C-alpha cells in the first residue's frame, strides 16, 4: 500500500467527457494525463476528487473495474464542490486519489448467488459499478434483478443505458418506478420500498441497497418483512471524509471508519454500530 502522505497527495486527472443525466446529475469521464486510468478499483470503492481552492470530497466510482479505458463518476449537484464540478467542461483537469475502502464482495460472497440490486435516485451511482461488473462476469452469478426508482422519469440516472443495455439483456430483470405519475410514463409509480414488497422477491437472493438514508431504512424493513435476513443485505454508506485512510477522524462511527472499514457494510454489521449515519 502507498504511504500516507503520498496517499494524501493526488494525481492529476482530466475530464474527457461530460454527460448530462438528469437536471441535477452529470456523469464525468476521467482519464489520467497519459490517456489511461488513474488506478484500478473494485466495485463499491471510492475516490477523492478535488478542485484545488474549492475543495476535495469522496465520490463513488460509477464505472465498472472491467472498463480499462476510463473512470466515470455520476455526481449530483448539491453543494460547494459539486456546483463547481457541474460547471466543468471537457479538458478540465482535476485531482484524483484512491481507490479507498472495501468493495462489495463480488468475488466471494456474491459468487453463485441470485442478486437483487435496489437503488434510489443518485444511489444508483455506486451500484452501477457492481451491476456492470456482474454483467461482465455474467456466468459467475445467478439471476440479476434491478429495482430502481427516482422522483420522476427525468431523474433516472443512466436511463438510456438501462433501457438499451440492461433491459435487453437476457437473465436480467429491471423494475423501474417513479414517485408520482407523469405524462409519458407508463411504468410503475410508487416508492421503492413498497415496490420491492409488491415484487415479493424470493428470499434466497443477496440484496444490495443504495439510496437516501430513509429509503435504505424502509427498503431494509420491507426486505425483512419478505423474510430476508440482514446477513443477506448489503449497503454502502457515506459520511464526510478528509483523509480517506482512517486517520482524520471524521467518518468514525463506533469503532469503524467508513472510509477504510466501509463504505460497504452488510446490514447485520450496522446493528453493532451506533445509529449515527
Amino acid at each position: 500500500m502507498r504511504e500516507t502522505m503520498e496517499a494524501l497527495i493526488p494525481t492529476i486527472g482530466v475530464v474527457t467527457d461530460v454527460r448530462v443525466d438528469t437536471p441535477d446529475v452529470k456523469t464525468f469521464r476521467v482519464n489520467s494525463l497519459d490517456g489511461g486510468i488513474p488506478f484500478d478499483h473494485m466495485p463499491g470503492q471510492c475516490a477523492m476528487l478535488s478542485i484545488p481552492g474549492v475543495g476535495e470530497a469522496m465520490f463513488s466510482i460509477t464505472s465498472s473495474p472491467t472498463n480499462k479505458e476510463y473512470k466515470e463518476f455520476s455526481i449530483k449537484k448539491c453543494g460547494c464542490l459539486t456546483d463547481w464540478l457541474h460547471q466543468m467542461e471537457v479538458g478540465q483537469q482535476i485531482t484524483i486519489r484512491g481507490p479507498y475502502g472495501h468493495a462489495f464482495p463480488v468475488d466471494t460472497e456474491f459468487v453463485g448467488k441470485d442478486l437483487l440490486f435496489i437503488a434510489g435516485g443518485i444511489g444508483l451511482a455506486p451500484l452501477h459499478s457492481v451491476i456492470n461488473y456482474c454483467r461482465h462476469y455474467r456466468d459467475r452469478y445467478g439471476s440479476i434483478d434491478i429495482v430502481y426508482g427516482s422522483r420522476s422519469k427525468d431523474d433516472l440516472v443512466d436511463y438510456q443505458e438501462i433501457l438499451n443495455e440492461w433491459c435487453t439483456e437476457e437473465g436480467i430483470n429491471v423494475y423501474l418506478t417513479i414517485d408520482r405519475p407523469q405524462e409519458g410514463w407508463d411504468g410503475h409509480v410508487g416508492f421503492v420500498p413498497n415496490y420491492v414488497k409488491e415484487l415479493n422477491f424470493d428470499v434466497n437472493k443477496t440484496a444490495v441497497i443504495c439510496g437516501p438514508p430513509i429509503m435504505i431504512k424502509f427498503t431494509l424493513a420491507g426486505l425483512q418483512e419478505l423474510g430476508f435476513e440482514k446477513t443477506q443485505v448489503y449497503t454502502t454508506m457515506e459520511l464526510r471524509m478528509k483523509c480517506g485512510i482512517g486517520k482524520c477522524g471524521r467518518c468514525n462511527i463506533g469503532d469503524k471508519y467508513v472510509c477504510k472499514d466501509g463504505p460497504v457494510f452488510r446490514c447485520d454489521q450496522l446493528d453493532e454500530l451506533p445509529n449515527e449515519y
Partner: protein
Amino acid sequence: MMMYKINVDRLPELYAKMAESRALYLPIEKNDQVEFHPWNADACVRLDKLNTAKSAKDLFFPQTENLMKFKMQGKNISIEENRDPVEPFVLFGVRACDVRSFDVLDKVFLADPVDTFYQSRRENGVVISMACHEPEETCFCHAFGIDAADPAGDISCWMVEGTLYWKPLTEKGQALTETVSALMEQAGDQDQAKVEESQKALHAVMEKLPLYDLDLTGFDGDHLLEKFNSEKWAKLSEACLGCGSCTFVCPTCQCYDIRDYDNGHGVQRYRCWDSCMYSDFTMMAHGTPRKTQLEKFRQRFMHKLVYFPSNNDGMYSCVGCGRCLTKCPISMNIVKVIKALGGENHA
C-alpha cells in the same frame, strides 16, 4: 544503561551543548505562558512546570503543516510537493503523561498506511522525559497505568535536591547521552537511592490526590452500544459550548482537517488540527448525522474511552494530564464522564 547526574546550575551548559547539533525544545515561559519553544541562551526555562499549556504533540503533529501546492493555469493543474523539512531535534522536559500520548498518536499515524510526516518527526526527535515532583489535583495519569515518577521516553530525568539525574532508556537516548556525557558525572549507588527515595515520596503524594482512585472498569471497549445509548449523555453535555478547547489542549486528540488556501499565485493545501466538538466537523451537503452538541460531546468521549480501546488492545485515548479539567469554561471534563458512565455494566 548507566545513570548520570549534573548540578542544576550547569544545565545551561547542557542545553547549549545539545543545541549545538540540533534544535532543542524545552518548557519555556513567554508572556506568562509555558510552552515547548526552541531554546536559546536568553530563554526562561521552566523545567519545574508541570503541564505546558498546549501538549507536546505539536512537535510530532503540528497544529498546521503544508501538504502540497497547486498551480492553476486555465484548465490545467500542476502539483508541487512542499512539505516542511524535518531536522533532528530534542524534546526535553516531557512529563510521563505526555510521553504516553506519543504511544497513542503512534497507533493512529504509524498504522498502515503510515503517515510519513509524523513518522519522520518521530524518528528525528529524541524525547527526554521529566519525572513529576509535585503533581496537581487535576492529575489522573495513574488511572491509565502511567507512573509519573518513572516516565518513559528515550531518556528519563529526575530532579532531586538541585541535581538532575539522567538515565538513557533507548539507543537513541544513549547516542544523545554520549554527546553530552562529558558535562555530567556518572551516578553511583547513593544517587540511585536518592532517586528511588524521591520516587517513593512522589508516590505518597500521588496516593493522596483526589483523582488517584479514578476507576476505569466498565470502559473495556465492550458494551459499546449500552454506553452510547446511556441517558446520562444529555445531562453531561447540557452546558457544553462546543468551543473545542478540550481538543486543542489534549495530547491525544488527533482529528485533522485538510484545507486549501488560495494566495493568488497558487493554492496551498495544508492540514490542521480539527475538533469533533465543532458543528461543521461532519457537515455534508445534505446535513450532519450529529445534529446537537449532545452527539458531538458523546463522540469525543466515546472515542477516547470506548472506540479507541476497542481498536487498540485496550489502550485509552486519554493519558490523564488534566489539561481539559483546567481549561473547560463550563468545568465539564472526562473525569465526570468516567464517573457518570463507569460501572454501569457491572453493577
